[in-house]
């Protein structure tokens, strides 16, 4: 129902709003004093409120990094929890400034939905989780299975593609809210739960009664690059979000972390000098404070710190999400 409300609200906003895009998002954000960030309703490691109600996770850190860059204060973020179905309408209608909600970058979304993907914060792929007692060892054995999946996701489409390509059939059980769909899987309504492998690891680690009872099958059936999304046609805001993510990667590559950036700020390395804003005027190019990158690293940390704080405890491996210098895919363009 909430999805319908939000989509209806989005449709209504499109009907009524006048000059919504006359002002750039960056100016709007600066004048209202906070970043409105669309996040998941609760995916451990990516965006989930902790026991005191503070949002934590890799996707949340992207929002905090943007706030640190814009305001010099990582806490100036307001969160809007969104389901998979609500998320794009919420962004299109201006309800949120950034969508940082484990969202896969695809050409359809990049073009016909009127969105721009700023960067990739996590390289993912779709997988399957089954209870061990089913004795299934491969996704090829899933012919005829009942599969729990969330609607409005690339997952739902990849699933249908995979079974078509392998001439197998399945029964989908399509439930919108992550909590409900995982409940259905753990109650045994479905044989299989499918989503991005990161989501499977996170769900198994945080919701299963006994994580050891569930097996993630070896097949990864798709590419799922996840990252923050902004509205199409607002390039300054697009640049800010993009470089906030790159700053976290660049910091890790330069060996700068929230712990050591103060000591290293006086380093003679010209790359570090530029990065912390001691020389050059990179911040001004982005229409931000020159210490924007320093603030991100000091207050939020570098990418590796965020990964270790949020994902490592759930059993995630850096894998392809390591820096390019360490055999991974994480690569920020030069900050100069």
């Amino acid at each position, binding site marked *: 129902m909430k999805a*319908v409300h939000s989509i209806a609200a*989005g449709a209504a906003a499109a*009907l009524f709003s006048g000059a919504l895009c006359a002002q750039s998002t960056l100016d709007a954000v600066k004048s209202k004093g906070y970043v409105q960030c669309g996040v998941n309703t609760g995916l451990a490691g990516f965006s989930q409120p902790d026991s005191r109600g503070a949002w934590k996770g890799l996707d949340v850190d992207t929002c905090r990094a943007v706030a640190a860059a814009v305001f010099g204060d990582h806490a100036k973020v307001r969160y809007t929890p969104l389901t998979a179905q609500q998320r794009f309408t919420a962004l299109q209608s201006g309800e949120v400034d950034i969508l940082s909600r484990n969202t896969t970058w695809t050409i*359809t979304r990049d073009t016909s939905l*009127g969105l721009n993907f700023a960067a990739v914060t996590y390289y993912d792929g779709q997988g399957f989780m089954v209870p061990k007692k089913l004795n299934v060892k491969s996704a090829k054995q899933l012919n005829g299975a009942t599969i729990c999946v969330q609607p409005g996701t690339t997952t739902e489409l990849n699933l*249908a593609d995979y079974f*078509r390509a392998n001439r197998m059939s399945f029964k*989908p059980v399509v439930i919108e809210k992550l909590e409900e769909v995982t409940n259905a899987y753990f109650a045994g309504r479905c044989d299989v739960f499918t989503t991005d492998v990161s989501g499977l690891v996170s769900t198994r680690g945080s919701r299963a009664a006994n994580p050891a009872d569930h097996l993630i099958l070896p097949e990864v059936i798709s590419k799922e690059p996840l990252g923050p999304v902004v509205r199409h046609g607002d390039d300054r805001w697009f640049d800010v979000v993009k470089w906030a993510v790159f700053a976290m990667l660049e910091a890790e590559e330069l060996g700068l972390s929230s712990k050591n950036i103060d000591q290293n700020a006086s380093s003679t390395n010209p790359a570090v000098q530029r990065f912390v804003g001691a020389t050059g005027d990179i911040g001004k190019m982005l229409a931000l404070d020159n210490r924007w990158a320093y603030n991100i690293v000091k207050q939020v940390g570098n990418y590796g710190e965020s990964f270790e704080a949020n994902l490592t405890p759930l059993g995630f491996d850096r894998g392809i999400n390591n820096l390019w210098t360490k055999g991974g895919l994480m690569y920020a363009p030069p900050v100069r």
Partner: protein
Amino acid sequence: MRARAAAVQLALLAAVAFVLWYLASNTAANLEARKIASGFAFLGREAGFEIGEAPFLAYGAADSYARAIVVGLINTFRVAVIGIALATLLGMVLGLARLSRNWLLAKFAAGYIEVVRNVPLLVQLFFLYAVITENLPGPREALSPLAGVYFSNRGIAFPLPAPHAAHAWVLAALLAGAVLAWGLARWARARQARTGQPFPVLGAGAALVLGLPLAVFLAAGAPLALARPEMQGFNFAGGAILTPEFATLLFGLTLYTAAFIAEIVRAGVQAVDRGQSEAAYSLGLPRSRTTRLVILPQALRVIVPPLTSQYLNLTKNSSLAVAIGYPDLVSIANTTMNQTGQAIEGIAIIMAVYLTISLSISALMNWYNARIALKGARR
């Protein structure tokens, strides 16, 4: 005076037209500015997602969005039509039970109505869904109270008769029985008008409707091979299955709406003055005929209009299917909107479809209401 009234009307009309024009042009401009695709061309494109239940119309991921939406519409209709029939039946029974002189029955009905009417439907749906999926065992350990019937958290699997040539004849006999019963009723009414002799139409009619097909069925050698559900791989194959999602939505809507219908029925019966039945008794009419010929026609006049709104409510409430994963129209239109990003078109389709369904139900019920209105009464 009339000129002024006309001018006001005209001005109002112009204002409404202006607002509509403004909304349309503003929407188009906003969509264009944000580079969001618009138009209904997406309906012809391949949907690419599967649907859990697609009765009556074969559907696969390679079919178009339009076909997916039609499947959703069929699912909405399926739950609404069966739900309306069951809710009416249960509501009638509950409403009459609440009026019963049996203390226990009346209090039970009153308690049921008060509890069910005052708990939000969405909560009831989550509760029912949890009851089915959390409490029933997995398909490999399914409960089997009857041979061939299995209760599991995949739903209720039950046998269906395998199709046989004689079944068409049985169906034909059923139709013939119905036609004959209708003719018999006409004849009996004419005869009673002529001679005053009543005829047991109900019993004879039932004998025709049920007896004829049964006779044909037995004459053909009772060909009833059942296709039994059997565990194959992950799920039951063969027979038919009532999925937990469909069962939850159907029972949820039925139980909820029946509570409201029960109150409408009670109100309708109580609205008929006591003097009416007393007058009928004093004329010597037996109790059953008093109910059928005197009370019911007057009660229905009160019952039917609010009943129509309950039918509309049930149909619209079926969109709560989204929450428990039953693929109804809203669920599929939502998915379509999300995959294509065309929310305005999707919402427009949903609104147009529900409006059409609701207006159709209203028209049908208004026709029925006009038919049962007291003849000769001033309208």
